């Protein structure tokens, strides 16, 4: 990762989704996982655009998978988080936890 470059919110969510999905992480399952966990609609193309960027940074790798008739014969593209990606997620968690520590309770949050 380039110096001073942080993971964005969506970057982090995607990397976490990849970890949760393991070997079954491709566009449809990633979008579904994010929608289930966040309750918001996810644009499939945004998932790919972000994963492409993370791939350029060496945080994820991809491979072409099988094609099925329901996909119109088009191959799936599977993604997997790399060692560097896992380190980045850990680092992001550490930073966020540090920032979170000692904060007063947020408005509307239950004790």
């Amino acid at each position, binding site marked *: 990762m380039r110096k001073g470059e942080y993971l964005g919110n969506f970057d982090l969510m995607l990397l976490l989704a990849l970890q949760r999905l393991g070997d079954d992480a491709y566009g449809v399952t990633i*979008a579904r996982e994010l929608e289930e966990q966040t309750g918001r609609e996810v*644009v*499939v*193309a945004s998932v*790919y*655009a972000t994963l*492409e960027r993370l791939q350029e940074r060496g945080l994820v790798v991809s491979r072409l998978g099988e094609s099925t008739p329901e*996909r119109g014969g088009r191959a799936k*593209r599977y993604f997997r988080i790399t060692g560097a990606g896992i380190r980045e997620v850990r680092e992001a968690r550490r930073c966020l936890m540090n920032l979170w520590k000692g904060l007063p309770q947020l408005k509307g949050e239950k004790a």
Partner: protein
Amino acid sequence: MTSKQPPSLTTWMLKHFGSGPNNDAVLGDLAEQYVQNGSARWYRRQALKAIWVSLFREIRAHKGSAVVALLTGWVLWTFNVTSIFPLITPYFFNVNPDGPTIGVAILLSDPIGSVLTVLSAPVRLHAALNQPFSFAFAVALPFVAWALIGGLVAIIANLHLEANQTGIPARAKLTIGFHRDRQTAAVFLFAGSTLLLNLFLTGYFVFHLQMLVHGPSQEWSSAFGHLAAYVAASIVGIFLGGTLMGGLLHDKSTVVRN
């Protein structure tokens, strides 16, 4: 919609206007999701956003070639209205040979007026000359001109400097290769800039036109109608030229590969 085939027009649009290395995977994912949720509305929304996201990403990834293609398009159009259109004007309008020379004024002191002049000269000239509107001059000819320029923009987006194997910059050569993604993004960018400039300048255009109009025959609605026809012709022309040129380049690259 009960059929399990996704909306065909939307699929066609995503296939042809979507760009980026993952466009095929996105098409497959949307088709797979569509089979499960059956919502044509969801499919259309996702496909249109996919076109937008992929174009934006492609332009950002290849800013240089996008800017060069855009500038080339505007320089060519400016050359067209300043050099070619004045030559053909006498064939469409009754111009007094002893009168002032017909031309397009570009003034640094009036940048907005100059942009307006360059952008919409063909559709404004009849009013300036106090003559009837000519569809051939204001819509048909510009359509051909914009189509040619759209094609050239597509070619420019395909040009790139390729260093030879020795890696010596001085011996780098200009080559043409097929980059569908870059080309789609450049043509969209050029068409989008044309549309946006027209939208921004519409009010100014109509006001300016009213200043030039003599007599009651010219109505506001017809001025808008002429402008709308001209703008539609320019946008369709750019897309048509860019798409046709893209197809030709693609065919050529296939022949070379074989």
